[in-house]
């Protein structure tokens, strides 16, 4: 066991933990964006609310969620420990600091990460906490006529405040009753300050992953003439462009179009 402790306490071991937790968080972003694309569906939140309900009531997802929170905390703590050690390694700075050839994002990972941590607190407060631990989220009832496939929605007030969800089929009509997180999303995204915070945070995600994704592979030692260009391509286009732009479009679309 001390062998493992020694490995993960070494400089390279700490970097390994940063790389692995970082990459796990990257894979989560893909899933998160994929699910949230339901927000762009013009169905009064039917798809999105059912999806949110699934995420919070499917045990394996719950397990992965707690692994995810752990990864965020470990990634942040190790980043702090490494930064303190790096600062100690240069107690006296230079008088002249020239424009270094290193990229801006690679030199500001700590700043970008701090912005993201702050954003995560706000973001989880907005949705995760409100959904799971408050009674501030209303309910919606979706009635789908199974012969025509037409869905109508209406607000719904359950008898018990602890009501979670129900699905029943009667008279050729499917009735789905779920928490209306979609209304919370629409409410938050009609506040210009939240829209700004979300868009700025997605800018931070972009720059953080522009360096972070390919840097993680370098730290793991997976550098290869054939594969490294592919990793850099994915890191740039998927993680620094498509994913942040996809997320940033959500508050923008809700603020201006819904």
């Amino acid at each position, binding site marked *: 066991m001390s*062998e493992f402790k020694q490995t993960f306490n070494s*400089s390279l071991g700490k*970097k390994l933990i940063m790389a692995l937790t970082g990459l796990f968080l990257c894979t989560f972003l893909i899933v998160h964006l994929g699910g949230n694309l339901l927000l762009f569906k013009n169905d009064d939140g039917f798809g999105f609310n059912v999806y949110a309900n699934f995420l919070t009531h499917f045990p394996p997802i719950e397990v992965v969620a707690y692994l995810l929170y752990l990864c965020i905390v470990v990634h942040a703590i190790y980043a702090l420990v490494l930064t303190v050690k*790096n600062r100690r*390694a240069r107690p*006296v700075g230079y008088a002249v600091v*020239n424009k*270094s050839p*290193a990229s801006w994002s690679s030199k500001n990972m700590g700043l970008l990460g701090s912005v993201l941590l702050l954003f995560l607190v706000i973001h989880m407060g907005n949705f995760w906490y409100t959904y799971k631990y408050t009674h501030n989220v209303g309910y919606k009832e979706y009635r789908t006529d199974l012969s025509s496939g037409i869905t109508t929605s209406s607000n719904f007030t359950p008898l018990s405040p602890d009501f979670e969800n129900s699905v029943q089929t009667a008279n050729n009509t499917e009735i789905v009753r779920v928490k209306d997180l979609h209304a919370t999303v629409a409410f938050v995204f009609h506040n210009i300050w939240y829209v700004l915070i979300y868009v700025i945070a997605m800018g931070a995600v972009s720059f953080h992953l522009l360096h972070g994704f390919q840097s993680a592979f370098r730290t793991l030692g997976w*550098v290869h003439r054939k594969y490294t260009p592919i990793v850099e391509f994915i890191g740039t286009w998927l993680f620094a462009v498509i994913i942040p732009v996809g997320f940033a479009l959500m508050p923008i679309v809700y603020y201006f179009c819904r």
Partner: protein
Amino acid sequence: MGNMNLTLKVWRQKNAQTPGKFVTYKAEGISPDMSFLEMLDVVNESLILKSEEPIHFDHDCREGICGMCSLYINGHPHGPKRAITTCQLHMRSFKDGETITIEPWRAAPFPVIKDLAVDRSAFDRIQQAGGYVSVNTGGVPDANEILIPKVIADEAFNSATCIGCGACVAACKNASAMLFVSAKVSQFAMLPQGQTERWSRVQKMVAQMDEEGFGNCTNTGACEAECPKEIQLTNISRMNNDYFSAKLFREEHAHEE
């Protein structure tokens, strides 16, 4: 191009215990064909004539291969030019009337000995920890007896060009020594002669590097850009790969501590 007049802002520090400060000197009548170190020699001669303490700086071969010269010049280790050491930097790279700021390498494991000279024995200790290969005594083996593919030999030689000057540490925002250590690990890890100690070497050298208190690599690539011998960042990935293999997957552990 006529002779140049320059203003130097030089870090002067009596010893590691005393705080240092910048002192401004005039360097007049400097030939553009002088090397940077020759320019400092001229300034020092004038200081000696005035009975002042000359500026201390490290130098030895003055042809770019020993790794002794250092100097952080105008925000760059070994000055503004790419892929050369300070002794290969000529005064024609500067403009007449320019102010040049000269600082020592800044890193906790490189304490200032005096002025611009720093103690780089931390690098020696890392090398002594494992940066060698064991060979048998006896008859001289035939040259090229062991076949090595040319691409591998080239890569190993590229890593072996590291002169251990410490510019990577000086350039790194984290004062990390990983480019140096990875070059010294790689030069043997790729060759058949280096296989015997391959897994113990990387563990011992990384352990010593951590012991010395260097920072941690964040893959910014500043070291690669400033290295006078153009040692590549790929070396760090290679070292990491070997280190994690040794620590997590290898059964044989040559070092028992």
